[in-house]
């Protein structure tokens, strides 16, 4: 059970996305976990074949508990590549655990006794492994019986129903929808079949009864999630809201007890930003339109790069600034409560991409489908509560972060400049920051930098 947030102590397993025997790569989604705050997907930290599922669905376990055992595949356990004689593929696989406690590196797999196998060069072995070919069954045609790239490719071609690259979820979905994976052409990385491909393929099949979002069975019981009918769910939704409220309360109490907050605010001139956005939006179909939040978030991310004292984590050994800016975005859930998942490397994303990710993040947050990494690692958080009306918002810092930026409502207001009075769009930006790390001067620099950046919206 990985830690899905600084305040998380335990998690409940609500769904397995893989089963014993499935092959998973690092980063493949393997399970769905319910924290007190939301339901999240958990990815594998290792590559290999799922040997055992150690936690049952519905079980609540502390952070650090192994969830599954992943047996590393031969290609993983083979000795490192040497100069000279080709490395041998090992047949017996070593076993190590996934979901190790946070920050602990997976143990080095035990070296297993090599079985008699044809010699094979590491890149070819890697290819075989990637394609799911057992090298022990290939007859090498190269010099000295060495297995060549061509041998591996032949083995793949000769195989009935060759293996198709796909994520476990896509495979699962395909099985549920009765679609043969091999018949789908994948659009993912290295032609992997994605969930969307499966949906498309299922849609083009005769019965078009595929639910629009995705099969309900695929989703963990999304308690209180918007897609669910409300009937019969009310008490469960209430219970979930109460537990979310408790989790927020505990985290915010901890923040206020341990972090000496200081607060700053300034009014940002948005004339240039809003004019630019309106002219861009006029040229765009509705799906590609921007909202002011996208510009504000981008400016907040860029400014965090320039003022590192607001971007990072405060731990036992003091402040550790972060080299990347993972911008947490506080998302109000429609049924009440909030979560603050991250847009990764927000400072490097073009505004259009950031806008897309913001929309995606908000809709997934509301549907309770966030991923582990998104919840665990924001380096600074923005709250944009003003969107629904208030002029300014002073946030409470999410520990172990050290700053929270607040944007109020974008509104027209009288603006005096050079002895003239005009009307401009403006927004009040606030900063709540940790006095152990920075003080008002640097915090003020951060807000001033946001304003500077917003004067050249086309460069954001």
């Amino acid at each position, binding site marked *: 059970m990985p830690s899905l947030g600084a305040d998380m102590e335990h998690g409940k397993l609500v769904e397995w996305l893989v089963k014993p025997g499935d092959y998973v790569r690092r980063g493949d989604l393997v399970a769905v976990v319910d924290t007190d705050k939301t339901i999240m997907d958990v990815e594998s930290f290792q590559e290999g074949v799922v040997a055992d599922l150690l936690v049952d669905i519905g079980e609540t376990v502390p952070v650090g508990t192994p969830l599954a055992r992943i047996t590393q595949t031969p290609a993983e356990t083979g000795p490192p590549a040497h100069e000279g004689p080709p490395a041998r593929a090992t047949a017996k696989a070593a076993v190590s655990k996934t979901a190790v406690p946070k920050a602990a590196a997976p143990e080095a797999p035990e070296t297993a006794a090599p079985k008699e196998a044809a010699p094979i060069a590491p890149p070819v072995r890697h290819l075989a492994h990637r394609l799911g070919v057992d090298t022990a069954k290939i007859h090498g045609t190269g010099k000295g019986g060495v297995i060549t790239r061509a041998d591996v490719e032949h083995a793949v071609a000769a195989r009935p129903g060759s293996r198709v690259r796909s994520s476990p979820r896509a495979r699962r979905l395909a099985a549920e929808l009765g679609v043969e994976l091999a018949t789908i052409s994948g659009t993912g990385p290295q032609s992997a079949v994605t969930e969307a491909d499966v949906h498309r393929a299922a849609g083009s099949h005769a019965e078009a009864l595929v639910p629009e979002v995705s099969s309900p069975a695929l989703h963990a019981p999304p308690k209180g999630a*918007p*897609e669910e009918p*409300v009937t019969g769910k009310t008490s469960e939704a209430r219970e979930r809201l109460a537990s979310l409220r408790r989790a927020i309360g505990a985290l915010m109490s901890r923040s206020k007890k341990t972090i000496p907050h200081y607060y700053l605010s300034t009014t940002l001139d948005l004339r240039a930003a809003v004019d630019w956005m309106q002219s861009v939006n006029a040229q765009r179909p*509705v799906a590609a339109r921007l*909202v002011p*939040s996208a510009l504000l978030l981008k400016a907040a991310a860029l400014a965090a790069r320039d003022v590192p004292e607001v971007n990072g984590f405060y731990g036992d050994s003091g402040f550790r600034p972060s080299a990347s800016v993972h911008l947490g975005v506080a998302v109000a859930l*429609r049924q009440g409560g909030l979560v603050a998942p991250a847009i990764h490397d927000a400072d490097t994303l073009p505004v259009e991409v950031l806008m897309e990710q913001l*929309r995606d993040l908000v809709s997934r947050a509301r549907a309770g489908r966030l991923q582990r990494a998104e919840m665990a690692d924001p380096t600074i958080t923005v709250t944009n509560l003003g969107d*629904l*009306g208030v002029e300014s918002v002073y946030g409470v810092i999410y520990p172990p972060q050290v700053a929270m930026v607040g944007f109020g409502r974008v509104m027209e207001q009288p603006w005096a400049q050079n002895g003239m009075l005009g009307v401009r769009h403006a927004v009040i930006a606030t900063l709540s920051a940790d006095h152990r790390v920075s003080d008002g001067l640097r915090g003020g620099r951060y807000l001033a930098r946001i304003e500077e950046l917003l004067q050249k919206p086309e460069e954001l």
Partner: protein
Amino acid sequence: MNEQDAREAVHAAIGKVAPDVDMADVDEDSRLRQDLELDSLDFLRLVETIDTVTGVDIPERDYPAVATVKGLIDYLAARG
């Protein structure tokens, strides 16, 4: 599009964007942002949904005209 079709389209679109809102209880003078609590992203999704379903693309300059449920229905009825 007649008013009844427009109303149905609006109800369906709001139901999709904000499933927690019970349209039976909603007064047509309700403001989408303040009363139904749609944020800017919800509102964008509403406009997008309406575009997909009815083919009416509401440009940003017309947003003030569609700030209420009734305003949105009238807008669609006039243009759809």
